[in-house]
């Protein structure tokens, strides 16, 4: 699968741009602030129905009332036009050909992309929510039932927490009302628990393969941590009931799961060097790429943002190795230094199409 054509209108700093891409390597070079990352974000938007970096109202070009993005995707012999338009203040409209999607979730997963921005270490540094989001987004792209269970669980959790607050405020208690949400949490939570477990056991070996490929003599571990391993959801909710009433929130369930990143026996967040953290993130993303590829039967689009700037030579060499062996599909690479990427690619003897980005204008070289 690859993106053949892209048209942007009022998308971030682009007023009007139309581009043809090649099916392998596309390089975007240009000064800081010229719009390289914005272009990657437009591709991310078409694939996942949202920006990788900001909320919808910041996507519309300053001073304008709408944006429009259209992409022509080729999968095998099949060409499909995907478009999205958003008028400020209205609901966004996503279309496949001329048909509007009823639900955005129907589109997610059809044209997968993986974005690697090695600088973004939130995944390592932030709380467990970031890590759950990372894995949830992959599993949801592979499994509709998982996405539906997640929506249901989040709904029941929000309602249950509000109910606990109402109990406290009105000094009342209604066991049946609590149970109405508990049964929803149990039903959807069990699905999520089972599928996370199943997924992570498939993910770990692929992740480890990439980590040891990037960093030859280190072993990285990934662990799914959940209270549900010891206590079932129903029992856990029951035994936490008094605490829940007291704290006015739900203290047991899959919303407290975490994924532990471990390196050399210690926690990556505390003990890992910056380089190790970057390698860890790249291995996670490459594993995401391979798992999506295995399930979809074709390679996702890979967006590499400033990768040559942020990685050391040894790690760059490893990535170039993957490119040389043609293991990656269509690539979009950004670089603020025009010559570096060209030299690196010439060195491994692969041809690329290079685009120069300048203040929202793009020209093919």
């Amino acid at each position, binding site marked *: 699968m690859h993106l053949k054509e892209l048209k942007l209108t009022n998308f971030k700093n682009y007023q009007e741009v139309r581009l043809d891409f090649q099916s392998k390597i596309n390089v975007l070079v240009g000064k800081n602030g010229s719009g390289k990352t914005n272009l990657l974000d437009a591709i991310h938007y078409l694939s996942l129905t949202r920006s990788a970096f900001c909320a919808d109202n910041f996507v519309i070009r300053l001073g304008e009332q709408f944006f429009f993005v259209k992409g022509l995707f080729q999968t095998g012999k099949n060409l499909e036009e995907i478009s999205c338009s958003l008028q400020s203040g209205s609901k966004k409209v996503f279309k496949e050909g001329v048909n509007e999607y009823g639900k955005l979730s129907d589109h997610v997963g059809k044209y997968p992309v993986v974005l690697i921005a090695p600088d973004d270490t939130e995944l390592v540094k932030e709380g467990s929510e970031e890590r759950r989001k990372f894995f949830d987004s992959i599993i949801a792209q592979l499994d509709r039932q998982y996405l539906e269970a997640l929506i249901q669980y989040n709904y029941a959790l929000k309602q249950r927490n509000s109910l606990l607050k109402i109990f406290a405020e009105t000094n009342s208690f*209604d066991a*049946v009302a609590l149970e*109405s949400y508990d049964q929803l949490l149990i039903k959807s939570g069990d699905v999520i628990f089972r599928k996370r477990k199943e997924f992570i056991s498939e993910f770990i070996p692929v992740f480890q393969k990439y980590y040891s490929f990037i960093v030859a003599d280190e072993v990285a571990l990934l662990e799914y941590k959940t209270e549900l391993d010891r206590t079932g959801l129903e029992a856990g909710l029951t035994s936490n009931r008094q605490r829940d009433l007291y704290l006015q929130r739900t203290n047991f369930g899959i919303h407290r799961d975490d994924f532990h990143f471990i390196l050399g026996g210690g926690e990556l967040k505390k003990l890992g060097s910056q380089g190790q953290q970057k390698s860890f993130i790249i291995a996670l993303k490459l594993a995401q790429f391979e798992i999506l590829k295995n399930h979809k039967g074709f390679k996702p689009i890979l967006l590499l943002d400033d990768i040559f700037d942020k990685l050391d030579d040894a790690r760059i060499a490893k990535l170039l190795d993957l490119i040389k062996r043609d293991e990656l599909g269509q690539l979009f690479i950004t670089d603020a230094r025009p010559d570096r990427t060209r030299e690196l690619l010439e060195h491994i003897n692969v041809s690329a199409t290079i685009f120069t980005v300048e203040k929202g204008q793009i020209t093919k070289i």
Partner: protein
Amino acid sequence: MEYPSKLIEEAVNQISKLPGIGKKTALRLVLHLIKERPESTTALSEALTNLRSQIRFCKHCFNISDHEVCSICTSHRRERSIVCVVEDTRDVMAIENTSQYTGLYHVLGGVISPVNGIGPADLTIEALIERLNTASSEIKEVILALSPTMEGDTTAFYINKRIKDLPVKVSTIARGVPVGGDLEYADEITLGRSITGRTLFN
């Protein structure tokens, strides 16, 4: 927006509080009223004042009513053994339009949604239970006709749990209604069919 008159500004502010009406539409309505004869504005404001001060809810079913007991609850032609539980008056109107239903109603006044500050105690659920419990009750069946949304489902679960030990049959409307949709928007044929084809609640 700058208005040429405080009076206009105040009227626009009040009208734009209504659902689905923005400042622009409100201004259009206000300018329209000024153009019309004064009597029509008086008639409008009287209608609204009367509506608010005289509107009542039926003491049995909580449907909107001009009297203490509504015309459905007093009608001799209605079956008294069956009660259809709905979210609000619009649902009563929608089901009446199907002409498929001849029983009574019970209007909840909403669905359970703690996020929006609505717990079971804010609805007429206790009154329903009391209605089923009174010695003179002839009710043999309760139909839960709530929208197939997550809120509607939770409310149905809750009510069923509360009344399942009483000597009444609890059923739910068949899902001809598109999932995720509102009852109000279902067409009459679909809605009529889903009432006749109701299934036992489990």
